[in-house]
């Protein structure tokens, strides 16, 4: 349960953290301030302490140096010019001063004004006769020879090969003139009075350093390694630089090795040196650092303690409030009436819960009131006869009432999952977004829509929609009324008017409606036309002014009578619209009374002017026509009678002809058949004679017998031809579509095949199709093409053509050759059976072919003719239908 109160939002967390923050900041501020102040104080104290120490040591060293110089000066007084002149005495003088020798561990010596050593101690003889003025470090000697006692700068001794410091005092004569110098040398590498510096430490790791400023040389130092070393150049350590220039005091600085140190400096006037004490800050301020650490630990400890306590305290103090929050949360979730919350304490939280309880009480009362109100509204909502819908701006149906669901065929529950899109027809759906936008803009609109019923059909609704802004999201409330019936009535009315207007306009006759004051209230185009007026002019007018007074009087009288009595009237009358010819019209007028009680006159005009005129003309015409008809009829009767007689006659002749033809066919068949039998006997017996009795006959007899046989043979062929002719023409026709070109080609192939030696070109026009008997037409073409083939036989090459041309507007087919031809004058009996144009010797034949062709052509209702000249070839034409 606590987990969520660890979050930032939790009051506990925030108070705890805030408290902690104040605490931590305070503690840390105090500790930081304290440590800082303490550090400053301590630095001052330590610095002052250090400076004091350094001052004491410096004073000590200064005094020592003064003692050394004093010692030199006292001995220099002892040295008289006489002694100087006597090196042995001088040497003895120096040796007799042992205390003096103790002061200068590197010995001492005397020079003359020329700088040459006269005497020395200890008497090693190494320095005697050396001129120290030639030495680079002889500044001290120069000063002494000028008459001044001096402590020289440290340098590397020429004789001792060790760092040394020389001190010198002038030797004067009785007049005070400088006659030489006494020099004492201290070997810094050997124990000397500066030992107290080199052996003393400052603190645990600090130390002293004696510096000779001119060359920045370290004369002596706790760190012996630094003796005779040169200090860092000017600018590296500002504090040191300041001290070199005469500053005395302490300061915190960083030395050349990067170590932070607390240093103090003090001048040593006797030698112009500087004494510096150094203590690393780390050591100097160690107590402070330790104290700071302890304070930090204490601060952390205190912080944790304060945080924990605050947390615990808050949790304890806020527990009742959290319980209340939980109770309220569960109350909000449940539907039960709010129960008063338990009050466990009398503090502010107790007051708060008491306040909640009062609020809950008020809330319960209001809820009750709201429920009543809602119930009333719900009844109103569901009881409404109009369909009500609450719609989200997105089109979702949030709530609908019973009427809305009913008119759409759904239950309310089903509708709750629908979107407006599910109800809108596509046409309506297209307009919906725009409407919703307007409503959302605050407009209250009324419009018509079409919705789909659950059963699938669409129906029209009148919608009044408005925006309701309450709660989180604005919603759209709309009222729906099913206006299908109204729409149907409107449509029916519109249709009715449309129909009426169409009827009125369609009827060619002028139609009009007048009110009780003869004013036109409705009319059609024909009516406007007859009065030569526009609709705008006619409406509301009586039009009585447009006709002459007598006609006007007549019209209005009839109008009045019909309007008053209700008895319809039909009158033929003249209409003389001013500016137009007088027309004869038939006007029908009747009355109708509207449901309002108003009376109207309906009239229709039928213009009979033309009819009248036509009737008159017809009457005149009829009179003369009748006369002519009688006359013509008589003539016709006579003609018809003549024709009938003629037709009867012809029919008789034709019948007789047909019978005769038939008889002739039968006769020719039987006669040819019967003729064959005796002929066979003649032929047969002559054959037998020839075969069996040849030995009894002489050549003449044999020849005659042969001719007998040939004659019989020929007669047989004639009979055979006759028979086939009658067979061809005697049998029934079988009409079909025949491709003459194909037939001609097949005949040509046959002819060429039978006599391949000949050179004949056939030219056959393609696709000549006719209706006829295929067998007969094939026979006709066989004969014609066969003839052409035969009569071109005497020519080396020939050309035979089959084609079509026109004869009297009908197709005529022809077979043309370039053969022997014939004399047209002799062609009278061309188509008579057995008539021949050529002798057998020239062209063999029976003279039956063309007769056959003619019979075939005639049977097809056509005729045949020829065109030819001797040696110019022949052309046979034929037609096939009437």
């Amino acid at each position, binding site marked *: 349960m606590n987990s969520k109160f660890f979050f930032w939002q939790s009051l506990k967390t925030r108070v705890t953290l805030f408290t902690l923050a104040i605490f931590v900041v305070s503690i840390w501020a105090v500790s930081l301030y304290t440590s800082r102040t303490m550090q400053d104080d301590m630095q001052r104290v330590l610095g002052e302490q250090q400076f004091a120490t350094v001052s004491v040591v410096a004073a000590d060293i200064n005094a020592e140096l003064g003692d050394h110089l004093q010692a030199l000066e006292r001995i220099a007084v002892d040295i008289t010019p006489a002694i100087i002149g006597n090196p042995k005495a001088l040497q003895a003088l120096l040796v007799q001063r042992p205390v003096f020798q103790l002061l200068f561990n590197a010995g001492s010596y005397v020079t003359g004004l020329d700088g040459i050593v006269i005497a020395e101690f200890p008497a090693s003889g190494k320095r005697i006769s050396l001129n120290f003025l030639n030495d680079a470090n002889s500044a001290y000697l120069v000063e002494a020879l000028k008459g001044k006692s001096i402590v020289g700068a440290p340098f590397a001794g020429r004789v001792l090969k060790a760092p040394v410091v020389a001190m010198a005092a002038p030797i004067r004569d009785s007049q005070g003139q400088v006659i030489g110098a006494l020099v004492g040398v201290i070997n810094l590498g050997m124990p000397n009075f500066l030992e107290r510096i080199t052996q003393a430490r400052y603190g645990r790791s600090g130390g002293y350093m004696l510096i000779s400023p001119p060359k920045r040389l370290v004369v002596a130092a706790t760190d012996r390694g630094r003796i005779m070393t040169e200090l860092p150049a000017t600018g590296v350590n500002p504090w040191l630089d300041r001290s070199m220039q005469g500053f005395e005091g302490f300061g915190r600085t960083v030395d050349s090795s990067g170590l932070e140190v607390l240093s103090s400096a003090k001048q040593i006037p006797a030698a112009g040196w500087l004494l510096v004490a150094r203590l690393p800050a780390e050591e100097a301020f160690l107590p402070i650092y330790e104290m700071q650490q302890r304070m930090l630990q204490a601060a952390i400890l205190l912080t944790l303690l304060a945080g924990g306590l605050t947390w615990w305290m808050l949790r304890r103090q806020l527990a009742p409030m959290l319980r209340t929050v939980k109770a309220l949360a569960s109350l909000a979730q449940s539907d039960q009436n709010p129960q008063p919350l338990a009050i466990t304490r009398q503090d502010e939280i107790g007051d708060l819960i008491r306040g909640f309880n009062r609020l809950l009480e008020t809330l319960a009362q209001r809820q009750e009131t709201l429920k009543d109100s809602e119930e009333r509204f719900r009844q109103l909502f569901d009881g409404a006869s109009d369909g009500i819908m609450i719609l989200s701006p997105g089109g979702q149906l949030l709530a609908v009432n019973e009427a809305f669901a009913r008119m759409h065929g759904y239950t309310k529950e089903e509708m709750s999952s629908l979107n407006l899109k599910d109800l809108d027809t596509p046409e309506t759906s297209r307009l919906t977004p725009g409407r919703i936008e307007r409503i959302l803009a605050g407009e209250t609109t009324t419009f018509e829509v079409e919705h789909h019923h659950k059963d699938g059909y669409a129906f029209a609704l009148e919608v009044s929609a408005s925006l309701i802004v309450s709660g989180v999201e604005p919603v759209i409330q709309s009222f729906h009324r099913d206006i299908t019936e109204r729409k149907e009535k409107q449509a029916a009315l519109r249709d009715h008017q449309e129909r009426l207007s169409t009827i009125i306009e369609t009827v060619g006759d002028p139609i009009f409606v007048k009110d009780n004051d003869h004013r036109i209230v409705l009319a059609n185009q024909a009516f406007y036309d007859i009065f030569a007026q526009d609709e705008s002019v006619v409406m509301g007018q009586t039009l009585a002014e447009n006709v002459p007074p007598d006609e006007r009087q007549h019209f209005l009288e009839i109008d009045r009578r019909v309007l008053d009595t209700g008895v319809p009237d039909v009158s033929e009358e003249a209409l003389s619209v001013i500016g137009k010819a007088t027309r004869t019209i038939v006007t029908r007028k009747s009355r109708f009374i509207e449901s309002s009680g108003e009376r109207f006159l309906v009239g229709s005009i039928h213009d009979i002017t033309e009819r009248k005129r036509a009737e008159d003309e017809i009457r005149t015409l009829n009179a003369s026509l009748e006369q002519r008809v009688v006359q013509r009829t008589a003539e016709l009767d006579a003609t018809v009678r003549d024709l009938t007689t003629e037709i009867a006659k012809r029919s008789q002749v034709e019948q007789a002809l047909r019978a005769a033809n038939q008889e002739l066919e039968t006769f020719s068949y039987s006669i040819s058949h019967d003729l064959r*039998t005796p*002929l*066979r*006997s003649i*032929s*047969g017996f002559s*054959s037998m004679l020839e075969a069996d009795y040849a030995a009894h006959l002489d050549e003449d007899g044999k020849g005659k017998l042969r001719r007998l046989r040939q004659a019989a043979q020929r007669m047989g062929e004639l009979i055979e031809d006759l028979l*086939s002719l009658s067979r061809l023409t005697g049998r029934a026709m079988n009409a079909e579509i025949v491709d003459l070109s194909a037939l001609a080609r097949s005949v040509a192939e046959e002819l060429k095949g039978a006599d391949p030696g000949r050179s004949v070109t056939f030219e056959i026009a393609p696709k000549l199709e006719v209706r006829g008997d295929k067998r007969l037409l094939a026979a006709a073409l066989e004969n014609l093409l066969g003839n052409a083939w035969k009569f071109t036989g005497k020519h080396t090459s020939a050309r035979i053509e089959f084609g079509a041309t026109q004869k009297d507007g009908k197709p005529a087919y022809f077979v043309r050759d370039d053969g022997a031809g014939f004399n047209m004058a002799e062609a009278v009996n061309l188509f008579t059976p057995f008539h021949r144009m050529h002798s057998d010797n020239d062209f063999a034949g029976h003279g039956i072919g063309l007769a056959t062709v003619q019979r075939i052509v005639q049977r097809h209702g056509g005729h045949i003719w020829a065109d030819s000249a001797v040696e110019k070839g022949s052309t046979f034409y034929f037609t096939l239908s009437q």
Partner: protein
Amino acid sequence: MYSAPILLVEDNPDDEMFALNAFKKNNVRNRVIVARDGQEAIDYLFDTGKELPPFILLDLKIPKISGLDLLKRIRAHERTKFVPVIILTSSMNDEDLQVSFGLGGNSYVVKSLDLERFTKDIGVLADYWLDVNILPSSFDV
């Protein structure tokens, strides 16, 4: 080889002579029985005492019973239904010739004006029906 007499049904004596002449010229040794009309032919064929001819040479234009009727009766009779019948016709275009094949005619010979041709045709058919076309042994019922 059948030795039984051949039946010639022919009323014209000239044609009879040409037929006999043809048999002779082709060395057909069988006796030839000539029937002058249909009735004679039937009498001979249905007489069980007579041998069945190896073939019948039948002219269609004969008196009393027409050639076609005779053919019908030959084919209808149990005794004669397998006897070969050669039709004699004056023309190949004779419509009766076509009918005769429908009624069971086996071969035909045109009575040509050319006697040599006629003789040759008879010879070929006689050879066939006498020597080549041997009927089954159960034929003689």
